[in-house]
């Protein structure tokens, strides 16, 4: 195996300080998630960079501003649960978890290597901080409904957040869970839709129409908010105001761009799972480094 570029990049002196959420930290961490996940996908020769990039800001705001989780005690009973239902974007998730201190950054270099705990799709029994083993779509929201229900049963205050892809909402299991979460009044549950408008093979509206998406969730009994999924301040303030309506589960439709941050990847369906070549990686990292300044 040849020498692989080290992913341990600068700018991560801020990683473990999340006492006071800082917009600068969230911005820098989102940028690092993008750079690291692209490097990881390139090294592995496999991955889903388009969705890694569209979800990077959401992950950064969650892990560096919102989630009450302790990397030193990742199984603490009273922790918030974050479930990455779109498990194929494991590159972004692992980059966020490592930066948040759940495991060493150097571990990212093993992404998808033989015997690495960092499988192409996250394994809850191998990676600290991973709440659910996902990969097949439509699994995260039912599991999140279960954790939220358990918190309600116990009268506990911790919250559950589930990040789903928009194409993923074509899976019927999501709507089973949506009905059930509303029926049980799970206002401690928040689904975040990474609305990047593309799925593996096509635009969502061409493959199988999702719109009117907000009205669907509303009709299912959820309180819905729409937000720019790359606006850290807006995301942070929205999450700070949960529940949107007491007694209703929360749906945050985060409008994003697939491949966000790299000009030649944005809104290109092919980058769902294309692997950047060395040249493309260099160009992408150059753009992202410029944004970090």
């Amino acid at each position: 195996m040849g020498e692989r570029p080290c992913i341990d990049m600068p700018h991560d002196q801020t990683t473990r300080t999340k006492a006071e959420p800082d917009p600068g930290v969230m911005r820098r961490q989102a940028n690092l998630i993008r750079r690291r996940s692209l490097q990881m996908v390139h090294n592995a020769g496999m991955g889903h960079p388009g969705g890694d990039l569209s979800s990077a800001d959401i992950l950064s705001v969650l892990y560096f501003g919102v989630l009450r989780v302790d990397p030193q005690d990742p199984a603490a009973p009273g922790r918030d649960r974050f479930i990455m239902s779109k498990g194929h974007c494991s590159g972004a998730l692992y980059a966020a978890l490592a930066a948040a201190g759940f495991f060493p950054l150097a571990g990212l270099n093993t992404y998808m290597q033989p015997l690495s705990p960092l499988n192409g799709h996250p394994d809850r029994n191998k990676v600290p901080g991973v709440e659910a083993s996902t990969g097949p779509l439509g699994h995260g929201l039912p599991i999140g409904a279960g954790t939220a229900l358990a918190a309600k049963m116990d009268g506990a205050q911790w919250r559950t957040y589930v990040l789903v892809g928009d194409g993923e909402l074509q899976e019927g299991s999501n709507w089973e869970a949506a009905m059930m979460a509303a029926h049980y009044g799970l206002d401690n549950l928040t689904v975040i839709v990474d609305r990047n408008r593309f799925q593996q093979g096509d635009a969502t509206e061409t493959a199988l129409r999702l719109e009117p998406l907000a009205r669907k969730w509303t009709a299912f009994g959820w309180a819905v908010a729409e937000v720019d999924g790359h606006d850290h301040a807006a995301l942070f303030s929205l999450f700070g105001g949960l529940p949107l309506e007491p007694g209703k589960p929360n749906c945050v439709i985060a409008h994003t761009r697939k491949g966000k941050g790299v000009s030649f990847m944005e809104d290109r369906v092919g980058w769902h799972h294309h692997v950047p070549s060395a040249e493309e990686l260099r160009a992408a990292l150059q753009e992202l480094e410029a944004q970090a300044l």
Partner: protein
Amino acid sequence: MSGLFDCRKAFSEALEQVAEADPRIVVVTNDSVGSSNITGFRQRFPERFVNVGIAEQNLVGVSAGLANAGKIPFVCGAACFLTARSLEQVKVDLGYGQANVKLCGMSSGMAYGALGPTHHSIEDLAWTRVIPNLTVIVPADPEETRQAVLAAAQAGGPVYLRISRMPVPQVHPAGYQLRVGRAARLRDGGDLALIANGTMVARALEAADMLQADGIRARVLNLSTLKPLDEEAVVAAAAETGAIVTVEEHSIHGGLGGAVAEVVVRTKPAPMRILGVPGVFAPTGPTSWLLERFGLSAQGIRDAALELVYGRVRDEAEIRTGN
């Protein structure tokens, strides 16, 4: 041995018993309260009872989430829908995720006889036993059902309990102790082995009695834990009797017979007969009639055993006489 018992009664009594002792135990169902016999649980523990409606993917996913948060869900639904409709959730959320969830597949096999093959569950053992980390238990009588519920509550990982509604006699002696992963030898014998589980154990014992009159001493094993399989007991049966008949209220493909054959062929190859539903959708008819039709009766088991044993004896005679 007197009387016939619906194992669902023992199931729900045991469930309430473990729930009383352990506040982490919850019941989750897909609107199958009556058929799962959990009305009593709902009355006693309403705050620990969750109906997710007719939605099996969500049923299993929600249960994995409850387990993530420290609950011990017993998931109750008809075996046919519980295992088939949610199979990917069973594989990924429970098996791969190692969630502490107990799937309780009620009214398994052909218990719903005349309702037709849509409601029969004769494939569930095939597709549950291939999922890593998932323990599969098929109790044979009320006492074993009771102990299986207790064992499932104690186990740290996912378990599939297959609970029939067809009345069965008690097959175990007083003081029987279920050991998960170990077969129970209910009858000694060296001429052939009858290996059964669930509703078929009583019939295998009856067949053994008939075979005794035929001059054949049949060993009877209740292989109630299908996974992990008691390989030692299976190898011993193959080595010491040289002929095995398996009996299950299930397809002949991929269930108990398949599991036993997988062990036998790589250890002590021995002729086998696998009794079950022979790879067809059953016709319409009541359970007892269907079982009869597929040879899943004491008489059918005896006939298969005689054919197997005399076939083997004849072969040996032929060898001896050089014919």
